[in-house]
């Protein structure tokens, strides 16, 4: 299976990446390669740099890359703007999706989808055609049509916000999706809906990076690789049983790896 995945080139290559914000180093040499069809999980204590890694890949302007490269489909994207990265197929699912009062969810989704479609040389959708498309995608995350007429994420519950993220992922059809703690704040039913949505959207041509603290998401979506991060570095990489071991032994167990490295 894995050799078949690697027949084509990697979607994402993070090479020895170091980054800082306000002169404070956050990432200290992270390397990670994702091939089509692969699911990677990144785990680690709070503050170890998981979310920062996801934001830097998405192009957050508050972080400076001090060393290393990020390559997407073989091209260096270090200097691309966040919107250019998104249009070319990088999706970041937020841990805390942002509320945007006064901006209708439907219009926001339509503008986003058309930005991606324009990049893919697909015809942009008018409101009528977009409604048809979004209706179909709403099914994936079992969301009510009424959510579309509200402001982006405003007044949504934690679970509704996360489902809205997956709806966006379904509409944007990214090449790689980085989902930052998509499972946090979800009850068991919502977790299953979100996990099933992710599975439906992903395919042999796409890559997924799941950032999580818990095994329960990985019970629903089995990763090919599990990486453990600590203090801005990936300190151990293994297969899915590494997550189970972490669940059993806790992060204290990983402190030994830090001593070893």
């Amino acid at each position, binding site marked *: 299976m894995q050799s078949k995945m690697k027949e084509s080139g990697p979607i994402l290559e993070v090479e020895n990446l170091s980054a800082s914000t306000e002169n404070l180093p956050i990432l200290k040499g992270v390397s990670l390669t994702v091939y089509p069809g692969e699911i990677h999980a990144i785990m680690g204590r709070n503050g170890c740099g998981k979310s920062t890694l996801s934001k830097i890949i998405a192009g957050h302007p508050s972080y400076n890359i001090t060393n290393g490269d990020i390559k997407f489909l073989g091209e260096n994207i270090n200097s691309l703007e966040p919107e250019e990265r*998104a249009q070319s197929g990088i999706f*970041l699912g937020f841990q805390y999706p*942002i509320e945007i009062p*006064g901006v209708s969810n439907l219009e926001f989704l339509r503008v986003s989808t058309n930005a*991606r479609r324009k990049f893919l040389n697909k015809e942009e959708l008018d409101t009528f055609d977009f409604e048809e498309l979004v209706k179909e995608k709403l099914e994936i995350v079992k969301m009510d049509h009424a959510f579309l007429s509200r402001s982006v994420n405003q007044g949504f519950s934690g679970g509704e916000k996360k489902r809205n993220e997956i709806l966006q992922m379904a509409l944007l059809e990214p090449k790689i999706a980085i989902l930052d703690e998509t499972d946090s704040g979800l009850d068991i039913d919502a977790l299953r809906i979100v996990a099933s949505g992710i599975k439906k959207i992903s395919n042999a041509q796409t890559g997924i990076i799941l950032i999580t603290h818990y095994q329960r998401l990985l019970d629903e979506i089995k990763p090919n690789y599990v990486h453990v991060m600590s203090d801005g570095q990936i300190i151990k990489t293994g297969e899915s049983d590494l997550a189970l071991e972490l669940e059993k032994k806790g992060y204290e167990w990983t402190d030994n790896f830090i001593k070893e490295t």
Partner: protein
Amino acid sequence: MEIIEKIKTNQSLDNLTEIQKICLDKLQSSPLPNPKSEQWRLSNKSKFSNFLNYSFNEKDPKFNTPFPNTSQNTIRLVIGDDCQINLIEKNYSIKQLSEDKLVKYLKEQISCFDQNENWSDLLNLSLNRKKNTLGLKINGSEIPPIEIFSHASSNSLNTKTLVIFLEKNCDIDLLQVNLGKYNSSLSQSTFICLEENSSLNHGVVSYGESKSNLLNSLNVIQQNNSEYNLGSLHFKFNFARFEIRIKQSEGNAKTNIKGMQITKKDEQISTYTKIDFHGPNGFLDQINKSLADDKSHAIFEGSIIVPKIAQKTDASQLSRNLLLSNLAQIDTKPQLEIIADDVKCKHGATISQLNEEELFYMRTRGITLREASKLQLSSYFQEIISFIPVSKDRWDLLDKLLNEN
């Protein structure tokens, strides 16, 4: 005294109206506003001088409206354009105020003027001739929306005065549009009296061209059980002041205000509001927004006066401001003066920039920084624009703000 001389030399003293004479007389003692007073201390002195610099002669009294053609369902009036109206329909009437009533009402108003606070009105009334004054008496129901235009012409200082009596149980939508021209000054004074149980949805939209100036003064008296809703928007003026004075004369009245001013380049636009509660059970909900970009300066000063007689007043005043450039300046000062002891009053002010995290979120969805900023601004504007009556269907103000301004 320069201004007085200018007025006198511009018009023969014999031709002055009674109102003009009274106001000129008042101006003699303070020909210019006190630059150290609270109402004027932040006004840019050279811009204000520029406002007064233009000739008082109207150069181009004709006015070609750049706005949508009048709709069949809307009554449109242009002050100074041989404006006459005498509509008597089955359910309502809109009549011209008689000269006597107009003079009587203005004299009453002037007698209550504070020399400094009402300086803009004193200037307006001392300069204004009859043809640039429109007085209306409105009563009845199912009245069509009314649009009233005031405009300045280039290279001159124009004055327009509007007086409206809304009689008992009357309910109307009124949009007032003040237009500045290149190199012009417009002095607009408006006096509105809402009688018992009447209701006015009032929109004030003022916008200019390069180097236009505006002194816009609005005086509203609300009687028992009246409701006054004001949605206002001021933009594209080199120098503009919007002065709002509302008096709930007997209490038991409701006032809602949603106003916004947008400044760019080196413009200065300010809003001064004074809401006076003169009886119990008054209500006020006010929000004022400023957006300042480039090297511009936006000012808001609001005061709410709640004397002992105004028990059970419920008033809220919020100033929300967006600073879009490091060189722009925003001054805001919401104030409460409360003597009554059984009231619910609150005020607050915020100054912020475009929300970086919201922008990043939108950008991670492929929306460009420019588009994301526009979406944020449109949501910021929408709250105010949706409150301006008459404009919703035919006046695309949001588009004007986002794409033309």
